[in-house]
């Protein structure tokens, strides 16, 4: 073996390094079968059990990986990651609050959310174990070959003459019906030329709306979002706003509607709270069209 720096000795099968980014460790999100898979992988990477502490430990990492969702991911997939992220954030936020500050009802809802997330994680983990058992059995079985040989001539000649039993027309109709393409899912090709979306710009949109409305659901905030990338950018900007303590999240049911509350004051400027951590060194771009459109909303 060479001592090439690109060769990772301790490469985990589930979490691999790309080695391309100078920063080092990067999860390839496309390797994961959805949010539960990612969450379980992170938890096992830290050699933790599925507990509340484990969830808290991996929350930041989980969210960090959301920004690596592939640009061509579909909205449904993106949403499933975001909803789990929202629940994780709720839990983390609740742990930081002093005991008395939490109202009973919210407290209960949160406990419910936590338990449901646990239940789903454990359920998913169980099926993952079954899947790997099935994989083993399938592999093993594929090494055994069933006997399926033609009949000995003496028996083959005993078979009665075949009766096809339908006319040529019916036969042709049967072929036509069998060869009819079954309905396939529509492929959405719009994502192929996804324009760059700036988290900062989307953050400005989000802030503006929240300032005026006070409280909005995440769904409403993204209702006019033209593509997945914009939805992700808005979600990421919310995370930054949350970090700066100018928004709060409510989610009554796990994976349910996420409500965002503006808790900052009017003096907060977008450039102060949203870093370009997500955007990198983006050239200043022209106004986001959705921002202009937004004026006529409501």
């Amino acid at each position, binding site marked *: 073996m060479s001592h090439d720096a690109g060769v990772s000795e301790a490469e985990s099968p589930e979490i691999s390094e790309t080695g391309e980014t100078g920063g080092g460790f990067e999860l390839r999100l496309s390797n994961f*079968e*959805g*949010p*539960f*898979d990612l969450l379980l992988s992170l938890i096992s990477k830290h050699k933790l059990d599925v507990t509340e502490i484990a969830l808290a430990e991996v929350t930041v990492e989980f969210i960090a990986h959301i920004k690596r969702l592939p640009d061509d991911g*579909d909205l*449904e*997939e993106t949403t*499933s990651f975001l909803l*789990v992220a929202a629940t994780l954030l709720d839990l983390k936020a609740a742990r930081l609050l002093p005991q008395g500050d939490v109202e009973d009802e919210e407290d209960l809802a949160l406990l419910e959310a936590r338990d449901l997330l646990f239940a*789903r994680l454990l*359920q*998913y983990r169980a*099926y*993952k174990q*079954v*899947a*790997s*058992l*099935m*994989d083993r*059995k*399938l*592999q*093993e*079985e*594929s*090494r*055994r*070959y*069933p*006997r*399926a*040989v033609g*009949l*000995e001539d003496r*028996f083959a000649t005993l078979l009665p003459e075949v009766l096809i039993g339908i006319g040529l027309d019916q036969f042709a109709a049967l072929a036509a019906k069998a060869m009819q393409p079954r309905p396939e*899912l529509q492929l959405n090709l719009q994502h192929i030329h996804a324009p760059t979306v700036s988290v900062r710009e989307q953050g400005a949109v989000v802030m503006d709306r929240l300032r005026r409305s006070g409280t909005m659901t995440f769904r409403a905030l993204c209702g006019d979002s033209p593509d997945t990338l914009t939805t992700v950018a808005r979600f990421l900007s919310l995370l930054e706003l949350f970090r700066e303590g100018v928004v709060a999240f409510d989610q009554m049911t796990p994976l349910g509607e996420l409500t965002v509350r503006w808790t900052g004051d009017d003096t907060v400027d977008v450039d102060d709270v949203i870093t370009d951590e997500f955007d990198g060194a983006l050239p200043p771009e022209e106004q986001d069209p959705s921002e202009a459109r937004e004026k006529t909303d409501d």
Partner: protein
Amino acid sequence: MTDQVEEALPVPFAALRPALEAVLMVADQPLDELTLATAVSYPAAEVAAALAALAAEYDDQGRGFELRNVAGGWRYYTREEFAQVVEGFVLEGQQARLTQAALETLAVVAYQQPVSRARVSAVRGVNVDGVMRTLISRGLVEEAGQDGEHGATLYRTTSYFLERIGIVSIDEL
């Protein structure tokens, strides 16, 4: 049906096992005990015992083939350790390995059947439409009617799946 008392056993008593061997040798699919019992005109229970005895005999004698009950039917298979030697003589190529997504989806369907696509999606946390189509086209999963309440299509695993995984029934998993 017929008075089977003494009359017309096509297979003399001592010949039950070899008669089963002969029938199994020409079969191109798994045969259940009832079919075999009909073929050799013996009570199903005796046939079942004879099949188990034959399977054990082949194991004891270290034969290159084994007799296995898979997906509810008995069939000759080559023994696993000779896979490499046998491969060249088998028509169908090696089955492509299933992806992780396909395996997980299959696992959920196997344990929750009959089950809707939405339900499988909820367990896995991702959309399973494409994977489900793959599983159907590979004959591992099939439609199983509609959900009474929502009219959603339900899915179940096929007996081909049992055959592929080498078990008699889903309870074995």
